[in-house]
């Protein structure tokens, strides 16, 4: 009798432990983020209440303000509107004050960020455990925590980047373009990150196509596949750039943003070692293992699938290229003060510490790969069964 109960308990645990662990991770994230709304005001660092002001104005007048309420007001409102309109719509729909709503949405969006990173990690690896470990490492990063406890447009941006890249990887160019459009209207730095990652991914695909053509021009599919991906990648890039360009023309009447205060005064902090460690020391440790693991395990077959007999992991060429493009592009943006031509090159150096957070996202995903690699090395039998 007791053996039967034991078996049933074991079967129950085997069936639900994965989902329970994911829920537990989300609960820990919610526990730490409770203080976002457990106060008379939301956290105020990062101009959070300024966004609330624009949201309140929009609700009260029924129009998105064309002039600023910052720094004396009266000049064109240059900031992109998607995040603010999200808060406004939720506030109008529920009757909740926009200040409280922006806190609530921060908590909700941080949960969505965990879920989208879980999904992207799963899509990159074809392995649910990598997704679960990614969700776990979300809890372990100070930097991503700092940017998911403050009601800022960047929190929506941190959702939009992996969301859009998921559809780039799926080659669903229509949704990728819609994602890019929303990103362009969410947060300027997020837009630059997204376009840079997709642009570098496009470049890698072009190199693969050229190499395949050079090696064997008879094998048409071998180079036409990457060429189709290159053409597809143009869709989100063009949509993002056009959208932002149109927004600039609408608000400022010009595409020239080189004269704005953030560019002229080179806003942003240099990312030195103490700041870089804010990625999370454990995240960075497993990130190193993860990137080595991806480099060793990626397969050139475009449709690599896990072994049917034993649950495994497979990293397609596209996945590996996207991971590398994501890592390099965000690292270059993070260290834009070191890599580019001083203050003479376009808008740099600028916002180095803000771009770090987007590197942290891919670092967390790669840490998920790293944890999988470590536990696989211990021959943990649970990893061999699909949850």
């Amino acid at each position, binding site marked *: 009798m007791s053996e039967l109960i034991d078996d049933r308990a074991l079967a129950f645990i085997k069936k639900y432990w994965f989902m329970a662990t994911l829920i537990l991770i989300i609960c820990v994230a919610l526990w730490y983020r409770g203080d976002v709304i457990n106060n*008379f005001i939301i956290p105020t660092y990062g*101009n959070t209440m300024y*966004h609330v002001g624009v949201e*309140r104005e929009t609700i009260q007048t029924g129009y998105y303000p064309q002039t*600023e309420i*910052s720094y004396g007001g009266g000049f064109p409102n240059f900031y992109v509107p998607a995040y603010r309109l999200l808060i406004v719509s939720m506030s109008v729909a529920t009757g909740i004050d926009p200040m409280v709503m922006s806190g609530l949405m921060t908590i909700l969006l941080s949960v969505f960020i965990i879920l989208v990173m879980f999904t992207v990690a799963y899509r990159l690896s074809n392995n649910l455990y990598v997704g679960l470990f990614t969700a776990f490492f979300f809890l372990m*990063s100070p930097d991503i*925590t*700092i940017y998911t406890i403050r009601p800022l447009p960047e929190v929506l941006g941190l959702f939009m980047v992996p969301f859009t890249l998921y559809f780039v990887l799926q080659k669903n160019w229509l949704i990728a373009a819609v994602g890019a459009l929303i990103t362009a209207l969410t947060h300027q730095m997020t837009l630059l990150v997204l376009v840079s990652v997709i642009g570098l991914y496009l470049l890698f695909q072009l190199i693969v196509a050229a190499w395949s053509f050079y090696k064997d021009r008879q094998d048409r599919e071998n180079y036409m596949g990457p060429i189709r991906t290159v053409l597809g990648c143009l869709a989100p890039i063009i949509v993002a750039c056009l959208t932002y360009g149109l927004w600039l023309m609408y608000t400022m009447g010009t595409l020239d943003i080189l004269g704005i205060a953030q560019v002229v005064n080179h806003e942003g902090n240099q990312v030195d070692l103490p700041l870089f460690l804010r990625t999370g020391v454990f995240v960075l440790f497993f990130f190193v293992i993860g990137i080595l693991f991806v480099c060793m395990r990626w397969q050139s077959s475009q449709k690599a699938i896990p072994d049917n007999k034993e649950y495994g992991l497979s990293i397609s060429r596209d996945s590996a290229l996207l991971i590398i493009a994501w890592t390099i592009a965000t690292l270059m943006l993070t260290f834009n003060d070191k890599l580019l031509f001083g203050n003479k090159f376009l808008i740099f150096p600028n916002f180095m510490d803000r771009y770090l957070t987007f590197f942290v996202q891919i670092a967390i995903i790669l840490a998920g790969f790293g944890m999988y690699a470590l536990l696989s090395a211990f021959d943990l039998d649970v990893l061999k069964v699909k949850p």
Partner: protein
Amino acid sequence: MAGIVDYAKHALVILMFILLIYSSYFMGWSLSIPGTTSTYLFPEVKANADAWYGRVVTQGEMNATAWVIANTNKSDKFVADIFGAELIMGMTDRVSTVGGDWANAPDPVKVMGDTNTIYTTSDPQVAYNLSVEDHCQWVWLPNRDTFSGYDWVYGDHDKFNDTQYFQLQYANPDVQIYKVLT
């Protein structure tokens, strides 16, 4: 059938995850960062992120925003530091000298300097002239350090009691609101 070794492996893995969480949220220690004089503090998530929960503004300031809505015009402008200004714009939509997005603002560095001077100078005439120059009708004077883009300063509060230039209109233990006389 799982053996003792498998159970031990699973227990160790679970223990490792618990330790990782513990070191990120609960266990206090520090790490010297090589090549620098800095130390990296643990529990790393709480040690780094807790400070970003800061509100800076006080409950009394929040309470004062109701008075602002009831007693000032929508077009009125405040001298306020960045955090006070953003509270004012967030709750009342009134504009201040600083605060918000400086990206497209005309000469934001000048108004940062003006605001800082208005709070720090001990000369009421200097504070008054700058307030008028920046087209302000009100001064927001919180009972805390202010930040207008340079340093955190408490400033000189006494000068605002000079009734030749300023008139107290609202006060609670956390904030005073002065009218700039015309």
